[in-house]
């Protein structure tokens, strides 16, 4: 039962990451490899606030989100009038810089040692102690994230995002301020990723930079692609699938040293297969133009 609840929490966290990434990657066509950086920003903010100032979960989440929003501007502004390839490069640079900060700013983040002893989440003074309670909290947060993305996606703004995805120059010619819109949705996506990070920090009680590498970003991209980018349920299905996959692998009995590599090869193979055979993913969403 404990194990099942653990899987549920993981799925919830990755579902938040996947749907928020899908907002920019699937709906707006802007692939970002920086998602883990924002995830990490939220986690480290929650961890540091929790340990040094005893800031409760309900406050550390929005603070983390604000920091993520501010940080996201460095990426969105750098790629203002440039080809989307440069946006990808900018997210790549941002991800690597942030990992370097997590890993090297030892005075603040304790570097590779990580931060431990993160207090449990507390909502209005009531500490979330049991696994069941946390699973409920996680699902609630995931539900909120899903609803936010869903409302944006099915609004007039959502249609503008699709227009930007299909032909940004045309959308701009129609009078849409594409830079502002892209910066805005990128900020929303970053904020939600940060909230997932806060959740993660309070759940595990310990974080280190290795959870927030570019490989983690690619994992989230894989979830979005395999599930079906730009679709309603695709990212969630992708999250469920790619969280369950390594758990199933665990039962197959691969030695731990090898398991991580095999996992990643599987993710890579799934994405490659998707690109060649079915870029629309399982559920059938945006095929990235093919």
């Amino acid at each position, binding site marked *: 039962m404990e194990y099942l609840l653990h899987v549920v929490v993981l799925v919830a966290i990755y579902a938040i990451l996947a749907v928020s990434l899908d907002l920019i990657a699937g709906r707006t*066509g802007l*692939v970002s490899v920086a998602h883990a950086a924002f995830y990490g920003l939220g986690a480290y903010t929650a961890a540091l606030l929790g340990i040094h100032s005893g800031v409760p979960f309900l406050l550390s989440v929005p603070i983390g989100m604000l920091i993520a929003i501010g940080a996201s501007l*460095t*990426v969105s*502004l*750098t*790629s203002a*009038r*440039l*080809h*989307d*390839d*440069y946006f*990808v*490069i*900018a997210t*790549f*640079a*941002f991800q*690597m*810089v942030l990992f*370097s*900060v997590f*890993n*090297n700013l030892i005075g603040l983040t304790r570097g590779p040692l990580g931060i431990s002893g993160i207090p449990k989440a507390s909502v209005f003074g009531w500490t979330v102690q049991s696994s069941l309670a946390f699973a409920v909290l996680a699902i609630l947060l995931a539900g909120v994230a899903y609803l936010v993305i869903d409302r944006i996606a099915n609004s007039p703004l959502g249609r503008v995002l699709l227009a930007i995805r299909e032909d*940004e*120059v045309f959308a701009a010619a129609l009078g849409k301020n594409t830079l502002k819109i892209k910066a805005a949705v990128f900020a929303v996506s970053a904020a939600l990723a940060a909230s997932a990070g806060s959740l993660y920090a309070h759940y595990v009680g310990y974080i280190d930079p290795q959870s927030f590498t*570019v*490989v983690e970003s*690619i994992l989230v*991209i894989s979830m979005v*692609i395999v599930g079906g980018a730009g679709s309603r349920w695709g990212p969630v299905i992708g999250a469920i699938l790619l969280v369950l996959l390594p758990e199933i692998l665990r039962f197959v009995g691969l030695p731990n*040293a*090898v398991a991580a*590599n*095999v996992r*990643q*090869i599987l*993710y*890579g*193979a799934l*994405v*490659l297969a998707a*690109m*060649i055979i079915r*870029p629309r993913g399982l559920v059938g969403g945006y095929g*990235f*133009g*093919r």
Partner: protein
Amino acid sequence: MTSQVVLNGVLAGLTWGLVALGFTVVYSTARFLHVAYAATFVVGAYAGVSLSRVSGVPLVVCAFGAVAAGAVLGAAVEIFVYRPLRRMRSPSLVLFLASLAILIIVENSVALLFGSEIQVPARVAEQGSIRILGAQLSSAQSGTGIGALALFFFTWAFTRLSPVGKRMRAVASDAELASVVGVDERSTLALAMVIGSALSGASGFLLAYDTSATPTMGFTVLLVGVTAAIAGGMGSIPGAMLGGLLVGVAQHAGAWFLAPEWQDAVVFVILLLLLLLRPQGFFGKPLRKVTV
């Protein structure tokens, strides 16, 4: 001490220039982010290093092995992945995602086959150093630098003078117009891919010879190379080397004035600033979202 920092930076920069060169050759012709470039880099590095661990294999053979391994992998990716995707009229985003997937697969396969630990080649020639302008230059550094320079000039001459090179530049400049004039885009792209991959394999070995080879070195090296390529101007061959030198010096200056662990972050911050302020670099054309 600054002369030592600059010298180290320049020498490192020569290798970065080579990395940037290979990437810029592929990107300017194929026009998508071929991130699997990092995979050919890692494979080249491991091939060269593995050969060097076999006794009696001369260094030059190891270098050739690295180049060949990179080129073969690049050709395989081009034939088995990129070409079929292009046949299906896939946009550059799809090619990029496929490339990313290949990078993940290859890097983890290398980790599985060779272990995640760092591989250090047996030191073949580690004697002697020269003094230039008040700074020390080890024989390994000078060998690496000379190798990088040689490959750079060879590539430059090749693209400027040979008919094949001219075809590559034509496709890079305007693919449609080139095909109208009779340039076979498919084979030219394949050639660009092979050349770029060969260069990445070579630079992989050069870097591994100087420091070491790890399965995950690809990401950092790729991004540093991209920074150098953008700094010099994407598509410009002398620009790639100039960008590389700039990046190398910035890296070592950063290591000296801040701390060694920040040297990569310094480069990536430079990249973000470049994208913000001067995305065309030294010799590139001003970039626009679309050109009519």
